[in-house]
C-alpha cells in the first residue's frame, strides 16, 4: 500500500484494523479464528513497580546471598507432592496443536532447569513423557487419549475446567492438523475438524467435581497432586469452590493466556486479565486459610522474570508460560520473516496456529515442517529463557530483601495506573490510595 497522506484523519472508532476486519467478514461470512491470547491493551504486571530496599528495608547482595526459588506443589493431600526448582512451569499445550518435536522440546527445556511441563488435549506422547522429568497430565472435557495407564505415569493431574483465552468455550482443531497419529490418539477419523467439548461429560459443578477428584485419587492411590485449572472470570468463587472440591493446586489462567485456535471475538471479549485474577484467587485462599496450603499457579501473558516476581508478590506460588515458551523455541523467529509474509503475516505477528503451516515447525503436524524444529536445540533455547526469567525474578526479590521468592509480598509493590491499583489492590505510586479500598 502507498503511504497515507498526512492530512487524512485516523478514526479511533474505525482504525485500519477494524476496517480490515469488517471487510474480511463481509468477504468470507465467517468469524476470525486465530491462536494466541488477548492482544488488546489491558492492565497487566507492567503496570506495577517494585519498591526496592532503602532506609527501612534491607536488600540482599545480588550475586552472593542466596535467594531460593524452589516450589512445592501438591502438599495438601497427595502422597507424592512435586518440587520444582524454579517458580515457572510450562502450561498445557496439546500434541495436535503442537508438533511432537515441539512437545519434546518443551519437555527437554523444562527438565533442564528442573521444572514441569504439561500435556494438553490429545493425550500423552512417549516423546513428551520420556523427556519430561516432571509431567502434569491434563484431564480435559474431551478426554482424548485419556487412559489410566498414562494417568499413573504422570507426576500430577490437572483437571481443566477452562482456560483464559476462552473461558466457557470448547475448541476446534482443523482437519489439516488431524494427521494419522493425532487422529489415532484421539479416536477420530483422519482429516476431520475435531471439536473439543466445553464441558466435562460426567460431572457438573463443584459437588460433582469433589467426587471426580476423589475418583482420580482412588485410581492413582492418592499419590498424585491434583490441580484444577480455570479461566479467569469469577476467580474468587472458582478458587473457593475448587478448594472445597479438594484441589491440591489451583491454576488460574488470565485472558492473555494463549490458545491454539479460537474465535478472535472470544479471545478479546471474555474473561478478565491475569492481574486482578491473581489477587482474587489469593483473597479466596486467604479467606479459607488455605494460602500456601493449596498452591496457586497463575498464567496468561507471563513474559519475563518481572511478571513472575510480581505474580509471586501478589501471592501466587508459581507462574506458567505457554506462548512465551513457543517463542523461546523459535516461533515467530525473524529469520523466517519471508516465509511468514508468504502466509500473509510477518515474524512477530504470526498467530494462525490453527492452520498447521507454521514455518518454525511448532504449531504444525506437517511432517516436513515439523522436521525443521530440532527438539534438542529448542529445548535448550527454552531452558535458557527459563534461566533468564528465574535470574530476573531473583534479582528483584533480592532487591526487596527476600531470601526466597515466596517472601515477596504486596507491600513490595505499587501501581502506575489507577486501574492497576484497583485490580491488584496495591497503592498508586507515590500515594497510599487504593481505589475501592477503605470505602472510597
Amino acid at each position, binding site marked *: 500500500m502507498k503511504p497515507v497522506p498526512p492530512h487524512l484523519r485516523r478514526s479511533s472508532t474505525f482504525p485500519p484494523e477494524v476496517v480490515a476486519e469488517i471487510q474480511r467478514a463481509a468477504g468470507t461470512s465467517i468469524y476470525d479464528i486465530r491462536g494466541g491470547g488477548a492482544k488488546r491493551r489491558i492492565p497487566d504486571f507492567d503496570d506495577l513497580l517494585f519498591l526496592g530496599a532503602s532506609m527501612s528495608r534491607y536488600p540482599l547482595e545480588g550475586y552472593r546471598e542466596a535467594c531460593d526459588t524452589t516450589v512445592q506443589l501438591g502438599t495438601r493431600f497427595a502422597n507424592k507432592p512435586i518440587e520444582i526448582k524454579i517458580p515457572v512451569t510450562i502450561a498445557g499445550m496439546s500434541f495436535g496443536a503442537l508438533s511432537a518435536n515441539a512437545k519434546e522440546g518443551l519437555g527437554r527445556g523444562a527438565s533442564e532447569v528442573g521444572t514441569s511441563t504439561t500435556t494438553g488435549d490429545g493425550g500423552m506422547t512417549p516423546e513428551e513423557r520420556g523427556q519430561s522429568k516432571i509431567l502434569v497430565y491434563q484431564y480435559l472435557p474431551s478426554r482424548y487419549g485419556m487412559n489410566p495407564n498414562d494417568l499413573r505415569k504422570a507426576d500430577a493431574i490437572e483437571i481443566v475446567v477452562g482456560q483464559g483465552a476462552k473461558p466457557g468455550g470448547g475448541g476446534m482443531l482443523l482437519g489439516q492438523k488431524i494427521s494419522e497419529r493425532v487422529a489415532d490418539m484421539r479416536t477420530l477419523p483422519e482429516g476431520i475438524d475435531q471439536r473439543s467439548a466445553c464441558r466435562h*461429560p*460426567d*460431572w457438573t459443578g463443584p459437588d460433582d467435581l469433589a467426587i471426580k477428584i476423589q*475418583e482420580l485419587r482412588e485410581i492413582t492411590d492418592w499419590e498424585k497432586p491434583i490441580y484444577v485449572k480455570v479461566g479467569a472470570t469469577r476467580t474468587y468463587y472458582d478458587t473457593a469452590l475448587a478448594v472445597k472440591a479438594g484441589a491440591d493446586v489451583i491454576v488460574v489462567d488470565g485472558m492473555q493466556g494463549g490458545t491454539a485456535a479460537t474465535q478472535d471475538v472470544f479471545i478479546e471479549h471474555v474473561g478478565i486479565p491475569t492481574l486482578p485474577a491473581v489477587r482474587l484467587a489469593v483473597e479466596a485462599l486467604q479467606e479459607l486459610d488455605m494460602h500456601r496450603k493449596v498452591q496457586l499457579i497463575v498464567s496468561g501473558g507471563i513474559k519475563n522474570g518481572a511478571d513472575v516476581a510480581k505474580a509471586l508478590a501478589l501471592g501466587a506460588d508459581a507462574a506458567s508460560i505457554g506462548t512465551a515458551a513457543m517463542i523461546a523455541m523459535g516461533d515467530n523467529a525473524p529469520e523466517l520473516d519471508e516465509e511468514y509474509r508468504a502466509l500473509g503475516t510477518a515474524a512477530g505477528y504470526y498467530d494462525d496456529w490453527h492452520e498447521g503451516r507454521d514455518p518454525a515447525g511448532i504449531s504444525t503436524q506437517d511432517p516436513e515442517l515439523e522436521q525443521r524444529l530440532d527438539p534438542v536445540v529448542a529445548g535448550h533455547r527454552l531452558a535458557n529463557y527459563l534461566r533468564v526469567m528465574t535470574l530476573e525474578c531473583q534479582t528483584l526479590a533480592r532487591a526487596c530483601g527476600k531470601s526466597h521468592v515466596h517472601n515477596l509480598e504486596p507491600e513490595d509493590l505499587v501501581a502506575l495506573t489507577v486501574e492497576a491499583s484497583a485490580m491488584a489492590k496495591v497503592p498508586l505510586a507515590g500515594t497510599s490510595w487504593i481505589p475501592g479500598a477503605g470505602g472510597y
Partner: protein
Amino acid sequence: MAVFDLAQQPLRELNRTLHDLPEETNETHWKVTNPMGLHNIAVGLDRPITVEIDGHVGYYCAGMNQQAEVLVNGNCGQGVAENMMSGRVVVRGNASQSAGATAHGGLLVIEGDAAARCGISLKGGDIVVKGSVGHMSAFMAQAGRIVVCGDAGEYLGDSLYEARIYVRGKVSQLGADCVEKEMEAAHLEELRDLLSAAGVEADPADFRRYGSARNLYHFNVDKMDSY
C-alpha cells in the same frame, strides 16, 4: 470368595487391595457388601477378576476399568464405567446419567434404564441397555456401539462421529447430524453378537441403526442452523 464389607472397612482399603493384587492372583472373585451408595467403588481395576457388589452404588463405579468384571446388584449413580478400557461391567438395576462416558473398550450392560447422556463421547467401548436411555445419549460419540432395547430420549447421537447406535424402540428425536442408516447383514451380525454378549434375548431384525451423516465433519458456515 473374598468378602469386603464397606460398612466395616473403608473404600480406600478396598480399592488399594484390588489395585495391589498380583498379576497372577488366585483371589479372582470378590464380593462387596453394604456399598451404601458410596462413590468410586472398584475404580481403576486392572486385573482379570470379578467384583460383585451387593447393593446400590454412587458415582463412577468401575471407572477406568481394565480387564475386570464388575457386577452391580443394584442401581448406579453417575458415570458408571466411565472411561472403561476393557473388561465388563453389568448393572442389574438402573444407571444414572453419563453411563459409560468416554469408554474406550469393554462392555457395559445395563439391565434397567439409563438416564441422560448414556455413552457420551464414547471412544470404542460397547454399551447394551435392556431398558431405555435418556436425552442426549451418544452425544459426540466417536467409536464403539450402543444398543438400546427400549426407547431413546431426545437428541440421540447429537454431533455423532463414528459410533454406531442400534435402537429397538422409539427415538424421540435425533440429534444434529445423526441419521437412520440401512441395517446391512454385517450390522445384524454385529448386533447379534452384542446382544449375545450382554445376555439379551432379542431379534436383531427388530432394531434400527443410526449413525453420523458426516455433514458436520468440517466446519461449514452454510450449515449454521446445525451448530
